[in-house]
């Protein structure tokens, strides 16, 4: 086993799948020679050529639409969307076209397409380059949504996504590109819809997505030092969602916090909390607590930006409150 960065993991997944299947191609802005601004794709154009690593004009709706058509006719595009915030530009092609084609055609047309993009604030990139917009996509039937939380997941989920015959959206955490994790040399895939219990615990469940998995692991460390045993679960894909594993943990610990970097209002945490409340209600000692990003556009100033995202300390603090029963009085 070796440690590689999330960037390298994505690169390897793409290279392996492109070697395996000549219908796979990458399309997006500055993906070829430049290897994207984050340099995630470096080297791919050298191996696969410009016919399969395709630099586009700055026309997100256009190349997304093109990818949908290519996917419908035998190719397997991996669309590179430079920042997750640009997803607003391609919503029509993604949600009105890609997501619905298989259904509207009564199962006759497929759209085997991967949209890779990113999420995550605290990079001092301000309101239009810092959003975590996975909730929008998860709301639309017909799209699968993966949120890798380390290099290991980034590789395994990407490979699964490329082989999936449905449109899949993968949000990588742009702050994690240089983070290393252990990733097997030999080939592996991570099936969709299987949550990963990152850390077992007895007293409280922390359900965390993407960037928030690290945050919750740190929170669990803090709590462990205080004698509170936290279980950390990463759903890995939110569509499909491994409800079973989440419910099992909720029933075991009877206390749950859901932590996600998307805006809290009308986001991921509401859905997950809603399901757990509904289906594990009588096992819960306290309400499911939700922690999303603050419901404000992401501010540029570091003094403000840092307080918009849940931190290990903030999660630990909420956990303590839940354990102490103070939530009861608040409610």
């Amino acid at each position, binding site marked *: 086993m070796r440690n590689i960065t999330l960037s390298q993991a994505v690169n390897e997944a793409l290279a392996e799948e492109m070697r395996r299947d000549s219908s796979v191609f990458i399309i997006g802005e500055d993906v070829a020679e430049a290897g994207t601004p984050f340099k995630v794709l470096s080297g791919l154009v050298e191996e696969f050529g410009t016919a399969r690593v395709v630099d586009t004009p700055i026309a997100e709706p256009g190349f997304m639409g093109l990818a949908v058509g290519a996917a419908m006719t035998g190719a397997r595009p991996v669309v590179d969307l430079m920042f997750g915030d640009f997803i607003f530009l391609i919503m029509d092609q993604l949600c009105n076209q890609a997501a619905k084609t298989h259904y509207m055609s009564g199962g006759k047309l497929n759209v085997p397409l991967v949209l890779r993009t990113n999420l995550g604030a605290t990079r001092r990139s301000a309101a239009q380059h810092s959003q975590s917009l996975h909730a929008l996509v998860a709301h639309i*039937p017909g799209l699968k949504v993966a949120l890798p939380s380390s290099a290991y997941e980034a590789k395994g989920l990407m490979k699964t996504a490329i082989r999936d015959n*449905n449109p899949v959206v993968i949000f990588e955490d742009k702050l994690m590109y240089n983070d290393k994790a252990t990733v097997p040399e030999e080939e592996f895939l991570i099936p969709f819809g299987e949550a990963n219990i990152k850390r077992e615990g007895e007293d409280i469940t922390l359900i965390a997505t993407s960037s928030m998995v690290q945050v919750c692991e740190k929170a669990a460390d803090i709590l462990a030092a205080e004698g509170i045993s936290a279980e950390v679960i990463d759903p890995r894909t939110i569509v499909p969602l491994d409800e079973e594993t989440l419910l099992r943990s909720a029933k075991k610990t009877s206390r749950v916090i859901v932590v996600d970097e998307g805006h809290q209002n009308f986001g991921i945490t509401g859905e997950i909390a809603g399901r757990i409340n509904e289906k594990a209600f009588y096992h819960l000692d306290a309400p499911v607590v939700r922690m999303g990003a603050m419901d404000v556009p992401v501010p540029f100033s570091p003094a403000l930006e840092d307080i918009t995202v849940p931190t290990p300390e903030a999660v630990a603090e909420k956990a303590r409150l839940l354990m102490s029963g103070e939530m009861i009085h608040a409610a």
Partner: protein
Amino acid sequence: MPTFADNGDGGCARKILLKAIAKALHMTHSNADDYLRMYRQMVRIRTFEDNANQLYLSAKMPGLTHMYSGEEAVAVGICEALKTSDKITSTHRGHGHCVAKGADFKEMFCELLGKEEGYCRGKGGSMHIADQSNGNLGANAIVGGSMGIATGAAFSAKLLGKDDVAVCFFGDGATAQGLMYEVMNMAALWKLPVIYACENNGYSEYTRTDEIAAGSITARAEAFGIEAFQVDGQDVLAVNDLSQKLVERCRKGEGPFFIELMTYRYHGHHVGDINREYYRSKSEEKDWRENRDPITRFRAWLVEEGIASEEEIEAMNAAIKADASEAVEYALNAKYPDASEVDMHVFTDVEHALA
């Protein structure tokens, strides 16, 4: 910009032109069967639409639908230049493209009525009818929504080394959508085998084209370095002749191309658009129907050229009518999809998404 437009002199110069085209065609394309098939396909479209309209008026069809009547020469002229594996993308006004690309009446009417045997098992309906077996990637209820899809079909043909061509049908109204310029730019840069076929029927919904389109539509394509043509969309031979040439050139890697086809829709924007004098006059409608009908014109030419007799044509028309009635009858009696189908086909690999 080469112009194939009708000069509107009421027929004389036109006939001479048609003959010249016909002669030219006879050389490469000597079989009268091709002409008869084109005629037949135009009549099939018109007949399909007359039946669909009747289904609407008699409240037997759910929802609204958009009639292609009047524009038949466009779909047929183009699709007759294509192979089955060539791809098309269609629009909200999509029955004509669907028929022209080879679809059957039965599955089409079933789809319009939301029945299980429809092309899309009733899930798509008129605005999403698709027929992937004949290369029709589907109608689209988002105006301009299929421009990327058609361009992508051309992209994959090139990537995968197929010699398929893609045709993107869209209306004059759709030229206002920015997506068109984005994908034309890419198609031009990468020399993709795609033909952008703008059906300029003079209106987008209840608005005249000149009120919503500044400058020149063909010049917009030309600005991206794309060769653009304007052609009389009521003249199936002119459309077909141009299409054959462009399709061939596409296969040779000389694409993309742009065609503006000047045409007219006889009905309202959709079947419910009855009182429309506030946006266009009855006399204008009458003029197009009486003096520029693509079927009437082509029929006269077929007879004049001795390709078919009046009797043969009447027999063809009658057979198509009978076909259509039978298909309508079949569709009316066909069964709806079972309720359990509601969560099927959300994903390819999950039988029931909500199970």
